[in-house]
């Protein structure tokens, strides 16, 4: 990276930190925990989006489309539906009761043990996944720049902790706003350069034809398979339950929109998120599609993690030369087929050219799999994962983008990490303080004590995430690893909230037992590896609702008091 890129990157990052610290002045505990419920809808919206979009989203998103096509988009189809339910049902209750964490609501509706049980599930899943969100960009930066991974993890955490520790919710909301605008602008810039750099003035239309010939533009896949991760059914149903759980019950998201100035601002923020999420994800995936066509028309590297490729070449020169030669040969053959397609105006009359392209593509994949096998078999020697999805976009950025833009793109990794991790740490800290620590105290804390403890827990969870990131082992695709971990806990948590909102006669003991049983069911189903991870959310939440109702009928005492009415 050039000096100019370094200057741009460091100046932008420092600017954000200073802005965050500046916004942290004169804060009391209420502002630290809940931003005083003063945020307008557009700040709520950007907060929600920046919290969800971690560095993984921007690193892996294009790589996911490059490797697996556009079908990942279906994962977001359930999200707008979830936004409607949350805006209509969850928000009014959260705002009316003025809860400061999502789990405080469960205390009002059920009892203390249910609040604590759900809080534990949240702290467990969010604590670990925050560590993984920290590890994911760090490993990529460490590999690309040959930096020490521990150093990167410490740098990312410390600078972000500076403003999160001082300013809490308010500082997070204001920095997220800036961060997200910079991130989106930088991604748009990257897309512009990919289009400009397509060889031989290839129009976007032709680039789409090439991607389509390789089955990459499969935005809707209708074949049903329980184990298939992304199809229209798992996207709408599983995606709905996942989004409902994540946005409706995960304190890192609830904390963003309960900071809105009343029901109207919180609702608008959520509904706008439902409108912009699918188009935004489409554009991120489209960057991957354009990259696929770019590399198809130039030279696709055998492996996008260059450091790992060099090590394989160094330790296994014979195998590497053979695999590399085969890869180049197949790439040339593919290029000649694309030329045939182009000459025929992408309407070749029969499907024989497409069949040839698919055949060559499969041969290239098989060749690459052999390379990956080498990495797997000698993992301790090579010291890298056999998955290069997360390196695809950054390989292009580092190799092909002009001076100045490289710095701003690498900036995204830090900014996106800070945006999502700061919100996660803050939500973990407020939950620990309000759902656990303060419940053990007989006398209420003063404002100053709450602020001090809130900051202490922010620091604690920051250090915890760092430790998790240090211990994180190699994973498959990072984007899926984080999503899968969430799905182990999200189902039962959502189920408990659904019972709270809709099954009015079910009481605390029944729902707590149902939550425990359902968590065990989800873990068993996960280990049996019978369904794709998105379905775990559906299974977990429905299991709580059904067993909760059953337990209430079998063991519960009849009640004349419909709890939800009392709350309303």
């Amino acid at each position: 990276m050039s000096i100019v890129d370094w200057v741009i990157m460091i100046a932008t990052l420092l600017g954000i930190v200073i802005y965050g610290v500046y916004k942290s002045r004169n804060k009391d505990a209420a502002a630290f925990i809940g931003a005083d419920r003063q945020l307008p809808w557009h700040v709520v919206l950007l907060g929600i989006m920046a919290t969800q979009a971690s560095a993984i989203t921007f690193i892996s998103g294009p790589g996911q489309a490059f490797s697996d096509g556009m079908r990942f988009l279906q994962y977001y189809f359930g999200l707008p539906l979830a936004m409607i339910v949350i805006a209509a049902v969850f928000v009014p209750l959260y705002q009316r009761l003025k809860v400061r964490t999502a789990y405080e609501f469960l205390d009002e509706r059920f009892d203390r043990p249910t609040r604590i049980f759900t809080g534990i599930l949240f702290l467990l899943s969010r604590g670990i996944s925050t560590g993984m969100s920290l590890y994911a960009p760090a490993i990529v930066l460490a590999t690309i720049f040959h930096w020490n991974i521990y150093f990167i993890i410490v740098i990312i955490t410390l600078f972000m902790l500076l403003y999160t520790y001082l300013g809490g919710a308010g500082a997070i909301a204001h920095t997220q706003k800036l961060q997200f605008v910079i991130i989106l602008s930088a991604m748009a810039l990257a897309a512009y350069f990919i289009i400009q750099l397509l060889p031989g003035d290839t129009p976007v239309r032709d680039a789409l034809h090439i991607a389509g010939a390789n089955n990459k533009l499969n935005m809707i896949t209708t074949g049903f398979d329980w184990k298939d991760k992304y199809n229209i059914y798992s996207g709408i149903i599983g995606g709905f339950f996942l989004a409902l759980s994540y946005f409706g019950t995960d304190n890192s998201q609830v904390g963003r929109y309960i900071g809105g100035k009343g029901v109207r601002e919180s609702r608008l923020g959520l509904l706008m998120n439902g409108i912009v999420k699918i188009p935004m994800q489409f554009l991120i995936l489209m960057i991957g599609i354009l990259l696929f066509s770019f590399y198809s028309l130039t030279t696709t590297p055998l492996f996008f993690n260059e450091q790992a490729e060099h090590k394989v070449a160094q330790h296994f020169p014979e195998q590497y030369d053979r695999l590399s030669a085969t890869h180049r040969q197949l790439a040339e053959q593919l290029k000649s087929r694309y030329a045939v397609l182009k000459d025929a105006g992408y309407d070749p009359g029969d499907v024989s050219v497409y069949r040839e392209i698919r055949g060559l593509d499969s041969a290239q994949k098989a060749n690459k799999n052999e390379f990956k096998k080498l990495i797997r078999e000698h993992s301790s020697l090579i010291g890298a994962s056999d998955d290069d999805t997360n390196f695809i976009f950054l390989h292009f950025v580092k190799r092909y983008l002009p001076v100045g833009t490289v710095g701003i793109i690498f900036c995204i990794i830090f900014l996106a990490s800070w945006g999502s991790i700061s919100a996660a740490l803050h939500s973990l800290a407020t939950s620990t303080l309000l759902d656990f620590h303060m419940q053990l105290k007989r006398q209420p804390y003063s404002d100053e004590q709450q602020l001090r403890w809130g900051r202490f827990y922010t620091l604690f969870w920051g250090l915890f995430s760092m430790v998790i990131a240090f211990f994180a082992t190699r994973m498959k695709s990072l984007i899926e690893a984080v999503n899968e971990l969430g799905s182990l806990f999200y189902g039962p948590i959502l189920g408990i909230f659904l019972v709270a909102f809709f099954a009015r006669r079910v009481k605390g003991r029944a729902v707590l037992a149902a939550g425990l049983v359902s968590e065990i069911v989800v873990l068993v189903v996960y280990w049996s590896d019978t369904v794709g991870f998105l379905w775990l959310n559906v299974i977990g939440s429905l299991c709580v609702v059904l067993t909760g109702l059953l337990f209430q009928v079998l063991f519960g005492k009849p009640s004349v008091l419909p709890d939800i009415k009392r709350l309303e």
Partner: protein
Amino acid sequence: MEHKNTERIRWKIWYVALLIWLIVMIICSFLFTLKWNVAL
């Protein structure tokens, strides 16, 4: 009371609009797949 009802209707319009938006997105995705993706 009247104000409350107007508010309620306004939000319902929002929900229906978002639902329609989702359906449009899914239809567009489907048409995009049909036009650009080559299924063999």
